[in-house]
C-alpha cells in the first residue's frame, strides 16, 4: 500500500495526476451535468416555493464546497508548515480561487433565491454574513499570495494567515450568530433521522454535491500541476542564467 506522503514528491504527483486528472475531469463533468439536469428538469416543483426550490442544487453544493475548500487549505497549510512539502503549499494556493468562486456562487444563488422567497436580495443574517466574511478571507489570502515574489516566503506567510484566519473566521461566525438572529433556515440536510427533505430532491442534490466535489478536485489537480510547472519553469530560467 503506497503512502499518501509519496505524493509530496512533485514528480510522483505529476506522474499520478497525468492519468488521474482526465478521469476526474470527465467524472466531474458527467456527475455535475447529471445532477444539475436531474435537479432542474426532473424534480417536481415545491408546493410553496415553486420552481425556485431548484436553485438548491447549485446553492447547497457550492456553499458546502466553499467551507470544505477552506478546511482543505487549512490542512494543506498545516502540512506545509510542519512537513515542508511544496506540493501541499501549491495545492493550497490552487484551491483558493476555486473556493472564492464557490463562495460567490453560494452568495449569488442565495440572493437570487432570497429575492422571491424572503422578498430581499440580502439580509444581515448570520449565515449570509459569515459567508461574506469568508469571501473576504479568501480575497485576503489570494491577495497575499499575489503580493509576494518569493514562493517559499509566500507559502509560509499565507499558511500562517490561513491558520490565524481560520480561528478568526470561526469567531466571526459565532459573533454573527450572537449579533443577529437570522432569516436563513436551518441545515437542509442532516444525518440525524427525521430529515426535512424528500428523496426526490435529496438524490439529485447528493449527486450535485459529489459533482461539485469532483469539479473542485479536477480544478485543484489542474491548478497544482500548473503551479508545479510554473515553479519548474522558474528553476529552468534560473539555471539558464547561471550557465
Amino acid at each position, binding site marked *: 500500500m503506497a503512502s499518501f506522503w509519496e505524493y509530496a514528491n512533485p514528480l510522483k504527483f505529476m506522474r499520478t495526476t497525468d492519468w488521474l486528472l482526465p478521469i476526474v475531469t470527465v467524472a466531474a463533468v458527467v456527475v455535475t451535468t447529471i445532477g444539475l439536469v436531474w435537479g432542474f428538469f426532473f424534480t417536481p416543483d415545491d408546493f410553496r416555493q415553486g420552481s425556485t426550490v431548484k436553485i438548491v442544487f447549485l446553492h447547497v453544493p457550492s456553499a458546502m464546497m466553499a467551507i470544505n475548500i477552506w478546511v482543505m487549505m487549512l490542512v494543506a497549510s498545516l502540512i506545509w508548515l510542519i512537513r515542508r512539502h511544496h506540493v501541499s503549499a501549491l495545492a493550497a494556493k490552487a484551491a483558493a480561487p476555486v473556493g472564492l468562486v464557490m463562495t460567490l456562487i453560494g452568495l449569488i444563488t442565495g440572493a437570487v433565491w432570497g429575492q422571491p422567497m424572503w422578498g430581499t436580495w440580502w439580509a444581515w443574517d448570520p449565515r449570509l454574513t459569515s459567508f461574506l*466574511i469568508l469571501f*473576504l*478571507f479568501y*480575497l*485576503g489570502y489570494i*491577495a*497575499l499570495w499575489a*503580493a*509576494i515574489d518569493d514562493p517559499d*516566503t509566500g507559502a*509560509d*506567510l499565507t499558511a*500562517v*494567515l490561513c*491558520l*490565524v*484566519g481560520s480561528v*478568526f*473566521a470561526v*469567531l*466571526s461566525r*459565532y*459573533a*454573527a450568530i*450572537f*449579533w443577529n438572529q437570522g432569516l436563513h433556515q436551518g441545515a437542509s440536510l442532516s444525518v440525524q433521522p427525521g430529515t426535512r427533505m424528500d428523496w426526490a430532491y435529496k438524490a439529485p442534490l447528493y449527486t450535485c454535491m459529489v459533482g461539485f466535489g469532483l469539479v473542485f478536485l479536477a480544478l485543484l489537480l489542474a491548478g497544482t500541476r500548473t503551479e508545479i510547472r510554473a515553479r519548474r519553469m522558474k528553476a529552468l530560467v534560473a539555471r539558464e542564467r547561471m550557465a
Partner: protein
Amino acid sequence: MIALLTRDLRLALRAGGGFGLGLAFFLILAVLVPLGVGPEPATLALIAPGILWVGALLACLLSLDRIFALDFEDGSLDLLATAPVPLEAVVTIKAVAHWLTTGLPLVLISPVLGLLLFLPAEAYLWLILSLLLGTPALSVIGTFGAALTVGLKRGGLLMSLLVLPLYIPTLVFGAEVVSRGAQGLAVGTPLALLGSITAGAVALLPFASALVLRINLR
C-alpha cells in the same frame, strides 16, 4: 524591553506626527458622519455606537504600517530580531507601544465624540470600557497584519484587506456592548466575549506575529 518601549513611544510622539493622525482621523469621521447622515439626534444616537467603533477600528488601521515599516527600512528590525530579547517579546512591546499611542488616546477622546453623536448618557461608561477592553486586541491583531506585510511595497492596502476581516469579532462584540448599554440592557455577555477575544489575541497572536516576522526577515 523597557528601552524598546520608550524608544517606540518617543519615535511615535516626536517623529512625523504619526501620533496625532489617528486621533484626527477619528475626529474627522465623527464630524463627517452627521454631515452625511443628517443632524437628527435620534438617528445619530442610534448609529453612534457603531460609528465610534468603526472609527476606532479605522483609526487603528491607519497607524499600523508604522509599527514595523520604519524599523524594517533602516535595518533596526534585523538587529531586534537578532537581539537576545525573544522576538515574541519585541512584537508584544511593539503592540503595546502602538496601543499606548493609538488605542489609549482613542479611548480617552471617545466620550467627546460620543457627545457629538448624541450618544445616550447611559452608554458612556460602556463605550469607554468596551474600547478599553477591545483596542488592545486591535493593536495585537494589527501587529500581526503589519508583520505579514512588512517587506512588501504597497503593503498598506493589502494590510487593510488582511486585517479588517480579523477585526470583525472585536467590532461586533464591542459595538454590541455600547448599543446594549445605550438601550439599558445587560452588557455582561458581549463584554465577557470581547474580553476573551482580547485575552486570547494578546496571549497567542504575538507568537504568530513573531513567526511571520522571522519568515519575512529570512
